[in-house]
Structures are given as structure tokens and as C-alpha cells.
């Protein structure tokens, strides 16, 4: 088991003082017109208004298609300012997001894959530019928002997975396994702060060597893909959901320091290099590329949160990171299969080496981020 060096921000004596007014229950202040209507279908993303005044902006998203959708507001470098995941057909949801003046992109992601269907979204009005220190403090708030959105969906998807396992629905459980794990893998460095929970949820068979029971995602994975017999997995599934709930509560109470974000971004790529490229992570299901993509997305989200501070301190590094992330996304993109990914054992050694090369190329500049924002 790897030991992780992440330490809660409070212990480092860092206090984050984020933007105010982004509590989820606050009323929308988008103006007399109410929330901006977003109509998301399987092939289009229509936004009633492409501009707004600075402040809390509210959107009401209706999914008129057949696929599960997502909605994002991105700042430059794909920094997520706000997002809604798991938008089901016919169930409108609202998103409230605090937006300073600037140019953004709104995106729907039908099927929850790819870059999404994007359009420009402009916010005008006066908002004092952040100072250098505020930019760093804002990074932690921004990332906390990301963790919140990911954990919300992690809970929903884990519950669906657990229900399928308990219902004995092998096919459904197999389909949900990599989907639920996606939300887990995106925020794994946060989860790993809580050392005892991580091996219970995500441990592999070798945890037995440390005197622990083999439980969690991978235990159920083994049963699903080797014997197909999950009739005795009900208690393991229940425990998984309990553990995920606990870790989600703890993760949302945590505020990571900018340094932890930088190290987390690097650790996610280490996860890819050591566990996913080799096919060790999902050794029974071979769905490693799902985890691979999720780790990269999580790393990108952490870097995106730091972006305003990083642009000021090391613009060259930002340029390098953008190019390296793009190379990873392009190379990984070759292995899409439908709404998901090819299996690890469907890739040739040459294809795996190509992925390894682009991860190395990205991980080296990412390892410089912590030093740059210090």
C-alpha cells in the first residue's frame, strides 16, 4: 500500500478564503428572467441566453434526449466553474454558479463522453481582479467544488452498482462497474487521505497479505468476471456503499491546500503509470482505460483549479501542460469504444507504449507545478 503525503490543509496552516455566495441553496440572482434555460438533447445544447451579469448565475437544464447528459461551465483551460452530472432525460435540474466577469464556455456532454457540445458564454460587470494570493486561495475553493460534484455522482453510481449486485443482475453490474469507478478515480488523491478507507473500497487481492479482508470494488469485480457468481456479495456491496458514503462525507469536509492540489495532480498520473498502463488495476474486468481517463481528467481538474495562479507565476509551464494534456487526450482518444473505452487486453504493446510515452511527457512538467506555486 502506498503511503500518501497529502496532509489536510488545516495542518499546513493554510486557510482558504474562497468566493462568497456559492452555496447551493441560495436563490438564483440571474435577474427577472429567472434561470437561463438549457435544452440538452443527444446532438445539441441550446442555451437561451449566451451572456449574463457577474454574480451567481443560474441555469435550468432539461434533457430532451435519450442519453444521460452533463452540463459544464468552463473557464479558460477547461477549469470547471460549475457542473451538473448525471442529468437524466425528462428530469430538469438547476445549476447555480458564481461567475466573475469573463469569457466562458458552456458545454453539454450527451452520453457523458468527449469534449461536449460547446458554446461561448460571456459574463460582464465589475469584479475586482484577484490578487496573487487570492488566486491560490481560490484554487482550493474551485477544487472543492469539483470534489463536491464528483462525490455527488459517485454516491449515485455506487448505489446503482450496489443495487445491481444485490439484485443478482450480473450484466448491469458489469456495465456500471467502470462508470462508478470513474468518479472514484477522478478524486482518488483526496480519498486516499483517509488511509484506512481506501484499501477497503479500492484494495486489490494483495491486501489479504496485510491481514485485511478482500472487499470493495475489486472483490466484486473478481466475482463478476471470474465466476459470475455474486449471490454471496450482498454484504460486501452494502459495506462498499457504507464506506463510500463515509469517504464522501470526509472528502467534502476537507479543503486541500494548493500544494496538495499540485501533488494530487501528479499522483493521479503516477496511478496511471503504475497501475493502469500495466493492467494491474482492473485485472479481472480489463476496464483499466476507464480509470486511466478518469485519473487524467482528475489531474486536469486539479491543474485547472491552479491555473490562474500558475499563469501568473509560470506561463511557460502552462503552455507545456496544455500541449501535454492535449497529447494524452488525443492518444487516449484512439481507444474509444462507444461511450466507453476498449479493454486493456485489446491494446497492443506498441499502443500501450505510446500511452506510456504521453503520460511521461505530461508527468514531468506536472511534477514542476508544486515548485512553481510554492
Amino acid at each position: 500500500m502506498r503511503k500518501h503525503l497529502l496532509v489536510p490543509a488545516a495542518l499546513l496552516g493554510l486557510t482558504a478564503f474562497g468566493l462568497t455566495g456559492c452555496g447551493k441553496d441560495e436563490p438564483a440572482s440571474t435577474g427577472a428572467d429567472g434561470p437561463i434555460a438549457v435544452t440538452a438533447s443527444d446532438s445539441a445544447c441550446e442555451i437561451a441566453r449566451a451572456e449574463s451579469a457577474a454574480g451567481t448565475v443560474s441555469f435550468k437544464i432539461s434533457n430532451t434526449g435519450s442519453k444521460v447528459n452533463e452540463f459544464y461551465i468552463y473557464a479558460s483551460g477547461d477549469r470547471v466553474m460549475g457542473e451538473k452530472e448525471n442529468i437524466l432525460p425528462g428530469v430538469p435540474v438547476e445549476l447555480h454558479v458564481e461567475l466573475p466577469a469573463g469569457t466562458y464556455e458552456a458545454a453539454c456532454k450527451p452520453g457523458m463522453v468527449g469534449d461536449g457540445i460547446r458554446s461561448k458564454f460571456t459574463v460582464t460587470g465589475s469584479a475586482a481582479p484577484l490578487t496573487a494570493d487570492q488566486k491560490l486561495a481560490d484554487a482550493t475553493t474551485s477544487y472543492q467544488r469539483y470534489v463536491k460534484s464528483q462525490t455527488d455522482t459517485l454516491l449515485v453510481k455506487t448505489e446503482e452498482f450496489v443495487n445491481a449486485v444485490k439484485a443478482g443482475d450480473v450484466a448491469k453490474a458489469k456495465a456500471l462497474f467502470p462508470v462508478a469507478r470513474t468518479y472514484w478515480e477522478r478524486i482518488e488523491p483526496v480519498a486516499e487521505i483517509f488511509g484506512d478507507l481506501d484499501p477497503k473500497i479500492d484494495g486489490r487481492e494483495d491486501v489479504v497479505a496485510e491481514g485485511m479482508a478482500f472487499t470493495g470494488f475489486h472483490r466484486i469485480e473478481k466475482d463478476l468476471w471470474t465466476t459470475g457468481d455474486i449471490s454471496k456479495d450482498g454484504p460486501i456491496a452494502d459495506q462498499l456503499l457504507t464506506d463510500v458514503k463515509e469517504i464522501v462525507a470526509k472528502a467534502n469536509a476537507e479543503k486541500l491546500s494548493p500544494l496538495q492540489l499540485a501533488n494530487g495532480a501528479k499522483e493521479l498520473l503516477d496511478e496511471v503509470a503504475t497501475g493502469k498502463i500495466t493492467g494491474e488495476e482492473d485485472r479481472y474486468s480489463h476496464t483499466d482505460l476507464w480509470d486511466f481517463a478518469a485519473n487524467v481528467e482528475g489531474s486536469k481538474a486539479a491543474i485547472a483549479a491552479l491555473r490562474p495562479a500558475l499563469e501568473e507565476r509560470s506561463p511557460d509551464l502552462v503552455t507545456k501542460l496544455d500541449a501535454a494534456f492535449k497529447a494524452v487526450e488525443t492518444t487516449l482518444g484512439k481507444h474509444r469504444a462507444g461511450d466507453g473505452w476498449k479493454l486493456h487486453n485489446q491494446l497492443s504493446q506498441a499502443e500501450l507504449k505510446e500511452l506510456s510515452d504521453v503520460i511521461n511527457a505530461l508527468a514531468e512538467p506536472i511534477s514542476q507545478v508544486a515548485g512553481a506555486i510554492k
Partner: protein
Amino acid sequence: MVSRRKALTLAGVGVAGAAGVAATAAVLSGGGESATAADTAADGIAFYGEHQAGIVTPAQDRLHFVAFDVITKDRADLIELLQKWTAAAARMTAGHDAGVIGAVSGIAEAPPDDTGEALGLPPSGLTLTIGFGPSLFRTADGVDRFGLAARRPAALDDLPAFRGDALKPELSGGDLCIQACANDPQVAVHAIRNLARIGFGKVTVRYSQLGFGRTSSTSRTQATARNLMGFKDGTNNLKAEDGELLTEHLWATGPDGAEWMAGGSYLVTRKIRMVIETWDRTSLGEQEAIIGRNKGEGAPLGHAKEFDKIDFSRPGADGRPAIPMDSHVRLAHPEQNGGVRLLRRGYNFVDGSDGLGRLDAGLFFMAYQRDPRKQFVPVQRSLAKSDTLNEYIRHESSAVWACPPGVSGPQDFWGRALFT
């Protein structure tokens, strides 16, 4: 000599670095045309000079060889990498850290720009020698990625297929190579590891090879070493002291076809697996007949001493030539190959075992020369056709490289003449 450990204890790393380079240059002035024999195995070898170090430098004990594929498509990126590599090579061969900050002098939050395993170790005779493969100039599909196709020397041609070749493509070819030789394996490995790290995103390691127990001597000051067959290897090698012969057989010139290669040399690398277990069951007499020398002294059969001038017509007890017609020494000897010579610089390797309980071992053959088409290729054709040794060996990898001339000073870099 300023060791890494001493350098670190000096006040400023930058100052220490400059002092170290100056000290090295002073001690080793005149490195270039002639081999610069270091006083001890721990000393440094001059990095700058007319020719690259690591060719006529008396062969060190250890090798770490690496072949890279270039993955960047950007010529400027490639040039920048060569500049960074050259700077790091100059530092490391002088016994310093790979980067300007060093393994332990940076801020706590950033990864060090040197990996640290050579801290406290002396230069250990480290040489770093670069080569460019044919595919750098034009890929197998005919693509000229870096605008170099017109500058490929005719001598840098893919080697032809030889009889009995059992080449593994993944262990053959490559766009760039770096040969690290040192008297301490940790120093050689440290150098390659740090250069590979500097190259992430621009190059990717295609294959690498560790070697030990130099199998050739490249200077008359060195005794002839033995390969894993137990025989002395490289008795008739070109050596640093061979002056005229080096000009004729080792160093490329402008009129040979490529001005940028003047003062450089061509390197052929072949990984030759030995079927050790079968060889070991072969009688002493048969082993000696296959090689054409006796095993103890290394003297040609029918002769008394290792360096005796070989008389290939001398008869043995049965009236037939003492050195059999199909023996290795006869087929490989310059006299049988129009006088061509090679500067061999190979190393033994043992890459563990092969899963069938046999040693995965042999010779990583390396030979420098002026023109492989006239030197390595005809000799290897002759060997591949008739050498009885072939029953005990298997050529598993093959590559040819153009090693440019030496780096003249801190303003110069590896391959500058090729890119400007």
C-alpha cells in the same frame, strides 16, 4: 579532481561546477586525437575535443547503451533536446549532477533535477557518446520528419540482412543512441537515466543494454579481455596508439560524403546471444579450432604468443592449415578482408535467464569505423556464410549509427553541424 561530494560542500553549486570543469580540462588537456588515459579508474575523461570521447578512450569496465525513438515532430524541440543533453553530459562526465540545481540543493517542493544515485561518486571515467540512426533522416515509410533526408551520409545505410540473422525488430534500429561507459556501473546507469528523463516527451527509450567486462582493448596499455566463451577477444583490434591506421579506418572525413561527419565515426551495434550451455559442452580442442586460437594464451593455433604475426598457411600436425579455413580468427582477420580494420568496443551481457533455465547471455558487439559498407558489412558477410562459431551464437539485434565529431566547448552541442 572535484568529486560530486566535494562539489556539494563548496559554497555555490554554480561556482563549484565551473571550478570542476576547469579542473578537469586542465588535468586532461590534449584529450581528442589521442586517447587520454586517466590516471586512475576514478578520474574523469575530457568531454570536449576534436572527436567524441568513448571511442578511442581506453575501454572502461561497464556499459549502459540506450537507443531512442524521437517522438516529437518539431525540429526545434529536437535541437533543444540535443543542447540540453550536451550540457548535462558535460556536467556528468566531469563528475557533477545532471542539472544545474542538483540532487539535493533545490527547494523541497520540486523534484530534483538530478536523480542522486551518483552523489559522492567520482567521475569514474564516464564517457557519453551520441549516434544518429538512419531513421532519424528518413523513416521506414519514407518520411523526412526533420528536414534531414538530404544530409544523410551514404555510409549511414541500413545494414543488409545477413545469413542466420534472428533479429528482433524491437531491439534493432532507433533514431538516436547514447553509449555510456564508465568504470562504475552506477555512474553509467545514472547518466543514461538522467538523459532519458530530460528527453521525456521528445524521445522514448526503444531498448537499452547493460554490459560488463569489456571484451576489447582499445589501447596497448590494456590487457586483452575475455568474452563469455572464455577466449581473449580483440587481440587485433584497432587501438588508440595506431595513429595512421585510425585516420585510414576509424575517422570519417568531409570528402567521404558528409562534411558534418568530419572527425566522426560510424558505429555498428549487434546483440549477439551465445548458446552458452552448448558451448560449454564442447571439447577444448573443438572450441580452439572454432576460434582459431588457443584458449589459455590466446595465441593463433600453431603459434606461440598472442600477438605473433599470424601465418595462415602454417600447417598443423595433420598437414592441413593449423588455423582451420572456417575458423573465426581467419574469417575475421584483416588479411582475409582486404585489409579492413574495425575498432571493436563490445561488452559482455547477462540479462538473467531465459525461462528455459539457460543464461540469457552473450556479447553486445560494438564496432567503430569509417564506412560500414566497406568494413563491417563485408567482414560480417564472410562470417555469416562460413564461421563455425555460428552454431553457438545468434544475432538478435542490429543497428548502425553516425556518431558526429566531438563537441568543441560549452557553446557547441552534439550534432550542431548537422542542424545548422
